[in-house]
């Protein structure tokens, strides 16, 4: 009885693929998943303030080009 009338699985698959693509593209620019970071903060460090996306992005940007990390391949 609980079975849905139509299988909407493909929509969630599509959404999942898109999310992974965005995640991958961001990671290529050195920006990890923000939602995941917020979840981590809330779960593990509830005492710390949660930065907004702009602050998070800025911190990651500086971290990417800090010493010893800018190595790029030839």
């Amino acid at each position, binding site marked *: 009885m609980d079975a849905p009338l139509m299988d909407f699985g493909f929509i969630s698959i599509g959404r999942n693929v898109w999310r*992974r693509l*965005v*995640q*991958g*593209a*961001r*990671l*290529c*620019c*050195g*920006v*990890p*998943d923000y939602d*995941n*970071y*917020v*979840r*981590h*903060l809330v779960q*593990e460090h509830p005492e710390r303030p949660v930065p907004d*996306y*702009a602050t*998070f*992005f*800025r911190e*990651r*940007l*500086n*971290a*990417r*080009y*800090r*010493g*010893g*990390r*800018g*190595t*790029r*391949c*030839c």
Partner: protein
Amino acid sequence: MQGGFGKLAWAALALIGAVCFATVALRRGESINALWIVTAAVAIYLVAFRFYGRYIARNVLQLDATRATPAFVHNDGLDYVPTNRHVLFGHHFAAIAGAGPLIGPVLAAQTGYLPGTLWLIIGVVLAGAVQDFLVLVISSRRDGRSLGDLVREEMGQAPGTIALIGTFLIMIIILAVLAMIVVKALAESPWGMFTVIATIPIAIVMGIYMRLIRPGKIAEISIGGFVLLLSAIWFGGEVAAHPTWGPVFTFSASQITWMLMAYGFVAAVLPVWLLLAPRDYLSTFLKIGTIFALAIGILIVMPELLMPALTTFTDGSGPVWKGSMFPFLFITIACGAVSGFHALISSGTTPKLLANETDAQFIGYGGMLMESFVAIMAMVAASIIDPGVYFAMNSPAAIIGTDAATVAATVSSWGFVVTPDVLTATAAEIGENSILSRSGGAPTLAVGIAQILHSILPGEGMMAFWYHFAILFEALFILTAVDAGTRAGRFMLQDLLGNFLPALRRTNAWGPNLIATAGCVGLWGWFLYQGVTDPLGGINMLWPLFGIANQMLAGIALMLCTVVLFKMKRDRYAWVSIVPAVWLLICTTAAGWMKLFNPNPAVGFLAQANRYRHAISADELILPSADMGAMQQVMISNYINAALTSVFMFVVFAVLLYSIKAIVRARSVGVRTDRETAYVAFQPQEAKA
């Protein structure tokens, strides 16, 4: 794919690979289709991944799916994050793909497509992918530590420091050779120059938008930036054709060299969000996008290879680079088969993001197979060009002359028949004044890419558009690598010099910042300048130096892997890294030795330096040097290159000695002595993440 059907499918795939491989290797006298090479490569990659990759994962390294990775143990949501394997694959591939695998095969095509293709396929399976995979796992089991740290921990303080200095020198050479490729591609090309200059304001607009207007919205501004780039390419054509603006954007190679050094300095000192980061985003997406477009293009167009399988230059007399196939073909191919620089990436951000050890095969081994595939595509792009055009573009003016008629006559006399009309028509088609002696690989690759893209999206004058699109694609990610490398080099230099003058270590103070940046730019700038002004083409001189350095770093990484395997008491399986390490050591020391002592001035640095020294003392001018000062410079460059080659050889032999020492000590004790971090089991809720 378990059971009989799976086995059958793999056997069929192996058979397809073998048939294509045999066709590529054995068919002579008639041109073959590029698809044979592509299919052979892909089939062999898949079989190697499934069998050899899994052998290393299960038998050699004994990857343990229950072992918690650093991403879980140190999870901070930022640097250490368990990441989906497909996402991480993309990240890792974007970090390792660069100009190396694109340029190396283009230069190697002078001996025909066959030798290079064989080494690209065999080399990646047995050496390159093995290195990336092993280093990734070794680093992952040590909290994601860097290569330098790993060498220090497993082999001792001294080899660690030696390896670090070697890495710094290698980086300087890489920056110089990359910058030279850009200089050679943009010299006397107002169209290319305009589009590359246009990326600076485009990047600054993107940077300001991302900082102040819509913080962190990478996607929308990257799409905007891409549209602006395309319009800059289109507009560049108008500028180049304009009677006043065309000459304004026409610069000689040495002018561009100075501009590039000034630019590299400014870009490394400016806040990263303004210029470096936005251009980095743009170049990363453009790089991945163009690689995909090229792959699809080759599949659709199915071009015939016009370059013969083997040319007469297999004897080492070729104009693009000098020296016998062994060892110089292997040095020239470099990154597409095995790249030492990947050891730095595999021990950088990637191991900190692994969700499970068992993903390392897909990311480390698989990522490198993908890189090799990019190199195969570059080889295809270089081989679908008319060979006469290829040699006219890649031979130095000192050998083939400077006007179309002479060049066509010289190249035709080598057996690659080409008419002056074809040379001028090709130049006109791609919107350049001349294609003669556009060495460095990038212009040749751009012509190949333009031919493929133009076949899919044809149109009046679109060939020139695609050519400059390809040039921009290469220039953009090379320049980003140069900026980021200069920045990283600056920190390395500050750290290195800080040992003597602690005040220099303050990375936030302006004084030390400017001094170290200038030092770093000065170092690569010096090599760049000597390469650009070298009468014999420069790429002849710098690319082998780069190849030797890169392959030596790979040798060092593989020696580290060998030491670790022995310390893990996996002696029986150590051949997996010993075989490629020994091969790389033989290749690089042979190449280094020949570069130092070969009596042929075109090959040996010392012989060349002595030739110029004698000529200077006899007051004879060696053409095409303009005066004695220029000859003096050639002499000094060759001495310095010889010294640098000796330093590289010293580094690799020192690491070899320390490795042997470490292996002997490891074998003398009965227990494991490696410094793996203690086993931590996954928490039950993490196990299926």
